[in-house]
């Protein structure tokens, strides 16, 4: 796999990070060298190895279905640049 200018542009768009051509050039260089390093793993034969979903050999702990009242509305809304009638207010987003 090779990282091109298009790949960088696509990743920037998906992660909502704005770029400029200098940044893009740097990224192409950095990401390609990272990929090249990680690509060494492809030398291994893993035909008979199950994908690893967690590095800890434990199973998930389960919680009981109990409500903890923690109306943190006022604290939480402080993180919003704007709020109205207990709603977060964000720039219009609609398809």
């Amino acid at each position, binding site marked *: 796999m090779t990282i091109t200018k298009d790949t960088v542009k696509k990743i920037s768009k*998906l992660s909502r990070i704005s770029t400029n051509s200098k940044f893009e050039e740097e990224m192409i260089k950095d990401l390609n060298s990272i990929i090249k390093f990680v690509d060494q793993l492809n030398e291994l034969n893993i035909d008979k190895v199950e994908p690893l979903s967690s590095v800890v050999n434990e199973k998930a702990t389960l919680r009981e279905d109990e*409500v903890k009242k923690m109306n*943190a509305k006022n604290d939480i809304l402080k993180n919003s640049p704007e709020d109205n009638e207990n*709603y977060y207010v964000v720039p219009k987003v609609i398809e």
Partner: protein
Amino acid sequence: MNNKFNYYLKGKKGEYEVVIGLEVHAQILSEAKLFSPSATKFGQEPNSQVSLVDAAMPGMLPVINKFCVEQAIKTGLGLNAKINNFSIFDRKNYFYADLPQGYQISQYKNPIVGEGKVILDMPYGTKEIGIERLHLEQDAGKSLHDQDPNNSFVDLNRSGIALMEIVSKPDLSSPEEVSVYIKKLRSIMRYLNTCDGNMEEGSLRADVNVSVRKKGSKDFGTRCEIKNMNSIKFIQQAIDFEAYRQIELIEDGKAVNQETRLFDNKKQETRSMRSKEDAHDYRYFPDPDLLPLKLDSDFIENIKKKLPELPDQKKQRLINEFKLSSYEAGVIISDKETSAYYENVAKNSDYKLASNWLTVELFAVLNKQNKNISDSPVSSINLAKLINLIKNNTISGKIAKTVFEEMVKTDGDPEKIVIDRGLKQQSDPKELEKIISKILENNGDKVKQYKSGKEKLFGFFVGQAMKETEGKGNPNLINDILKKMLK
């Protein structure tokens, strides 16, 4: 009712069939959310049921709600599906204002429930619909777009509520089948108490995949996905519109684009959603905050043992126990409350009459008043009493309808209504004989005509007797007496 499948759509160049698959999102009934202890109540003050986990504050860790896992397993068992002892939670990445994490925790390659099936009763026979999988995921928050001209308002109360996504195989072939399928899923989940199935409140929503192909073809056409539908009626309209749109494209020699579309019920059309080119790049990967879900067989077996009677089993039992037809039983079991009501009436009166009175008379009233069986104006005890009054000849079936009307108005006790209004059936043979001989005396000419072969006049005599008794004469007795006296 049409007894043959006939949903084929006519184009200019031949007939087409429609291939439909559904992704149904069902909100799990639980007290707390899937990964946080916030409440799940509907219709609360905005952002009042949001924990730091739901708001995706840095450093917060999700912990799975055991009951939600059980609910998913119950539903899986209700769908005759394979329960997976090992499943994994993945992150589905996308940006939207009502998704504070920037990703939805879902299950991708290893869902908690695998393949299953649902049986549909169609007028043309039973049809099996394959279930591809059921997985657990978080619901997103809710955005309101119509409160302000420049802004959207976001309420995170729904954020993090547990959802089951139930994916069907592309086995559905008409809007009618889709409607029956959704109702069947809803009925199964209501029996299991895993989802309330309330489409208006959004606890049951569906994405609908539609494609078309020439009638009889085995190939699949390119499909479009119609997103986020929460009304069976609109789903049916959307499928119909979308199928014709695709047929038109194909016949004009154009290609159907695989894309996501929205249904506009006011304009009765589907239209393409913007920004589709990136929409499907979700970059799934296992959520490092959550360990794999490993379930031992005992855990699953225990749930299996405690499963309640399911719609299909109940239907079979009603057919065996009460000798109902498959159709009648199907109507009665369609929801839990109706079948409980029926069993109450049937056990305390007559199972056959109970089915007739429930599905014909009471359903008509409920439809007219736009009510559910749970707020029926006539209680099951009173309906059973009414049926018993017919059975023991206190009133005729015809008078029973008058009593029933009164019961609907007043929620009254039928026994009392019959006494108060003097509706008791006249079943004294001597009294009836007296009345009938008088009628025959007064209508000597008609008796002569009858005896010389004009047998149609029998109905006239019955009518007269009914008139004389003000509709209260026992019709069977009147028939018998007339037959005897007219010999």
